[in-house]
């Protein structure tokens, strides 16, 4: 049984997941795959909440359950105060859903996609057309409004997807990896749009991403998900502060014996959480600028040649590493 969950804020949550468990068939003769293994989090009304984690961590599964597409095996969830299992019909009117895959119809024009989405949400034809014009303008798609979506670039199509989710002014918007697959320029443009959107619409956003930078920039709070569980949550600053210190990286030169290097590093006071990643050794120091010279001195004494050494303020990547035991880039490679 999960522990009683206490909210990290005062107001009623716009979104709450309580000990969600979801399993899928693992194939013939294999045990069921546990996609969610007791996920709990709460999202304050009017904020952007990020679910951060590698592919297969359970981010999309969480979104599918909260958006009523799928049902949890156990646990409960509310969206805009409505129980998703008991009243899916009411939840569906309160949410916008932007799936990981393109949610627009490539055969329809941008405008037709928007109007159709609005009308399916119960808007009158007139309201839907007016709202479509407004959103096309906001996402700089007015010129492409009458073109079929199959002629759009990846960035344009993704912006249209977000606009489709916004048509009926939902209370809660789900964005499942909104920038995955976009080139850096389109991604940065999308971030600007999403920031502006959060300011303009009184809306709660649940965003999943495997880009740390994206979570850091957009989300006011986030939960790190790994193997179907929330391993850490808080604001990006809280999570970074929780690390107590700076990250120190030392890249070793040539054919150095890693064991020698680790032995030398262990003599330096104030360096902890040492992890070897290929030829790079990473550690954590209370004050990096003091620890680094000592570290280099110790390595020099042990005759270990160093290629480069850096100190960095804690990043979400460090938070991620701390809680999951692997870096996000490494788990992405494993997943691929």
């Amino acid at each position, binding site marked *: 049984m999960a522990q009683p969950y206490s909210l990290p804020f005062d107001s009623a949550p716009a979104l709450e997941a309580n000990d969600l468990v979801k399993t899928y068939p693992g194939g013939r003769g294999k045990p069921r795959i546990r996609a969610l293994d007791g996920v709990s989090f709460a999202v304050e009304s009017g904020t952007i909440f990020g679910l951060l984690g590698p592919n297969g961590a359970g981010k999309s599964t969480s979104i599918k359950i909260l958006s009523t597409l799928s049902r949890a095996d156990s646990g409960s969830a509310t969206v805009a105060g409505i129980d998703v299992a008991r009243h899916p*019909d009411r939840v569906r009117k309160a949410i916008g859903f932007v799936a990981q895959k393109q*949610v627009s*119809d490539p055969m329809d024009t941008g405008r037709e996609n928007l109007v*159709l989405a609005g*009308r*399916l949400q119960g808007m009158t034809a007139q309201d839907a057309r007016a709202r479509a014009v407004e959103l096309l303008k906001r996402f700089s798609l007015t010129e492409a409004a009458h073109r079929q979506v199959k002629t759009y670039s990846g960035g344009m199509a993704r912006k249209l997807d977000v606009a489709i989710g916004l048509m009926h002014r939902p209370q809660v918007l789900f964005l499942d990896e909104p920038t995955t697959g976009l080139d850096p320029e389109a991604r940065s443009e999308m971030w600007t749009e999403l920031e502006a959107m959060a300011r303009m619409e009184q809306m709660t956003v649940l965003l999943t991403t495997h880009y740390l930078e994206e979570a850091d920039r957009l989300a006011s709070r986030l939960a790190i998900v790994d193997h179907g569980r929330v391993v850490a949550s808080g604001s990006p600053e809280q999570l970074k502060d929780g690390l107590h210190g700076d990250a120190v990286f030392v890249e070793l030169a040539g054919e150095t014996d890693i064991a020698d290097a680790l032995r030398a590093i262990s003599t330096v006071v104030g360096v902890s959480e040492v992890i070897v990643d290929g030829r790079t050794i990473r550690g954590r120091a209370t004050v990096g600028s003091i620890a680094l010279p000592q570290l280099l001195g110790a390595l020099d004494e042990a005759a270990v040649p160093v290629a480069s050494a850096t100190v960095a303020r804690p990043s979400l990547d460090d938070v991620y590493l701390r809680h999951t035991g692997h870096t996000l880039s490494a788990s992405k490679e494993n997943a691929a």
Partner: protein
Amino acid sequence: MSIAITHTAILTARQLRAFIRVPGYLVMNLVQPIIWLLLFGQLFKSVVDIPGFSGGGNYLVFLTPGIVMMMALFGSAWAGTSYIQDMDRGVMDRFLTSPTSRGGLIVATMLYQAVLTIIQTLVVLAVAWLAGARFAGGMPGILILLLSAVLLTFVFAAFSNAIALLAKQQTALIAISQIISFPLMFLSSAIMDTSLSPHWVGTIARFNPVEWAVVAGRQALQASPDWEAVWANLGLLAALVVVMTWLATRAFRAYQRSV
């Protein structure tokens, strides 16, 4: 209910827009019935000379309703393809997380497919007429033929949608559609009088919705149709339409359990 009707209308319009935007698809839909009609018409021309053939002296007249139903069957068996495309993208998931009427999603595909069937049926009739076939049943006969073809389309479009939602893959949908539609086609009197086939073929044909549609359409095109047979077969088709539509709507639950 009015919500379901609105959703059906706007979703049907969406499919028709996509159809109109690919002129090649329209051409293909028009050429196909012509090829089938003329090919089969020539190939089996002399079956009318077999003693005991009950379809009259003109094979083309006999064959035309059969080809109409064959087109309706083969076309509607593909109806689920649009669902597969929506599922491959996030479109289906977006519909299902919105208040979109499930029944509306199913019926829109059925109506869209019915429009294609009507176009193809009119082409088949026109080609048959040009090739010399004359139908004594006149306009009422043609309307009943269209109705039979549309009901048959509804049955198999709903079925195809259900398969698409359960199988979720284009290859599986095609395999299942073909395994079912070809036997149904040949276990009917669509291209051959079943009284000349082995007895068991006629027995099976009585339970075959393709046969119901062929009989209703063929009877209605005759000078003095057996109206009782026409209405009985149309009634069977209509009942099956209701069952299939209900089953297909239920298939959304199975799909949502699997995502």
